[in-house]
């Protein structure tokens, strides 16, 4: 086993501050939030992706990831989360390569739509004054979001995800220390 780098420098306040960033991101879809508190996330994870996992995942949440052995060991040690092989069984998914298709993930039921997956995707870049036009709850008029590094058919997948409301997957996009969220309610139009 390779040597593990530390998790949050301050586990309690690090998780609190990261949670507020995620809560703000989920409440205001498309707005970028900056996350800190982890000095050396395991490759290939950025700070925001690593911090999000430590903030939300634990022994009660099955996690799927494609991030490789070092990240898996790090997550198992610091979050204590079980890792699963099938994306459909995961409460949290952490994708650093090609993300699994939204339709293959836990959607929740009509009665329990909250029992659905949250997908965290490490992308190449995020920018918030250009790109897609986002509307919906959390957005006064429209937010802009530009994402490099999602599959070409993401918007088609997203539209299908929205149609299933209240069922559906929620997405957190991360790029280095930055994150933005797309709750299932957000409408996305190409610019």
């Amino acid at each position, binding site marked *: 086993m390779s040597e593990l780098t530390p998790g949050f420098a301050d586990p309690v306040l690090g*998780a*609190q501050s990261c949670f507020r960033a995620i809560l703000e991101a989920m409440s*205001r879809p498309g707005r970028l939030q900056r996350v800190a508190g982890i000095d050396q996330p395991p490759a290939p994870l950025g700070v925001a992706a690593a911090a999000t996992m430590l903030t*939300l995942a634990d022994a009660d949440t099955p996690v799927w990831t494609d991030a490789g052995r070092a990240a898996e060991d790090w997550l198992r040690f610091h979050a204590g989360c079980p890792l699963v092989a099938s994306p459909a069984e995961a409460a949290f998914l952490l994708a650093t390569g090609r993300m699994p298709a939204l339709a293959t993930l836990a959607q929740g039921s009509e009665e329990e739509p909250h029992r659905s997956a949250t997908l965290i995707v490490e992308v190449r870049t995020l920018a918030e004054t250009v790109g897609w036009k986002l509307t919906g709850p959390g*957005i006064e008029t429209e937010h802009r979001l530009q994402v490099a590094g999602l599959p070409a058919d993401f918007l088609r997948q997203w539209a299908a995800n929205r149609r299933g409301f*209240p069922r559906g997957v929620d997405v957190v996009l991360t790029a280095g220390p930055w994150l933005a969220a797309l709750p*299932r309610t957000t409408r996305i139009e190409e610019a």
Partner: protein
Amino acid sequence: MTIETGYNFGYLDENTKRMIRRALLKAVAIPGHQVPFGSREMPLPYGWGTGGIQVTASVIGPQDRLKVIDQGADDTTNAVSIRRFFAKVAGVATTERTSGATIIQTRHRIPEVKLREGQILVYQVPMPEPLFRLEPRVSETRRMHALADYGLMHVRLYEDIARHGHIAISYNYPVMVGGRYLMSPSPIPAFDNPKMHRMPALQLFGAGREKRIYAVPPYTSVQSLDFEDHPFQPIRANAACALCGARDSYLDEVVTDDKGGRMFVCSDTDYCNTRQAAREAAE
């Protein structure tokens, strides 16, 4: 920052906070939908807002400034106890000023001053299920929410109109969130309902005894149920505040002596004090 030793920051242990935080994120993603959570015993009795306290404890950080109101007032026993609790277990700054708070925990009111981005309003909720008086079976109310089948509530409101000529609900007036979920606004006066609609601040609701969390994201539609020929009308006593003269605030009727003397004053003490101070400054 001074935090009393022997407590984890915010009182709750990290496992509990993580569980509540996960529930909060799903609640925000599904506006108005009640998410169950494993409510913990708190060092305050139920009825003292244990649901709201657990939500606040899972959200609050050292940078926050907390305001707590009970029926609009910052100085009731309940509000003071909760404020002291968080000063003790989280070392956070507290305030009575609505505009200076980043988190406002409330029971029974929404402040008169318009809330803004960067603020979170946490409601203490005794009964999260808006249908519980009409349908006591949880399995049935869950099915109704799943199907957005709210006919029962419309019938109940219509019976009110048939009997009283208007909808006779002055508190806890049911709302539709995002055009999809019927939601209890908690026992705030119907007067406050319009403030929930497209509020720039995030609204979080915690019900401790019933173990439910729900949320209204910023700028989200919140409509009080009504009928075309009987539109929703927020009710307010037709008077001016005896202390600050406000005609736009929600008023409490208070007894002033033992001879039946009464007067109307703002229920929101910060709003009233601020207006009185401004008037004095102008004189």
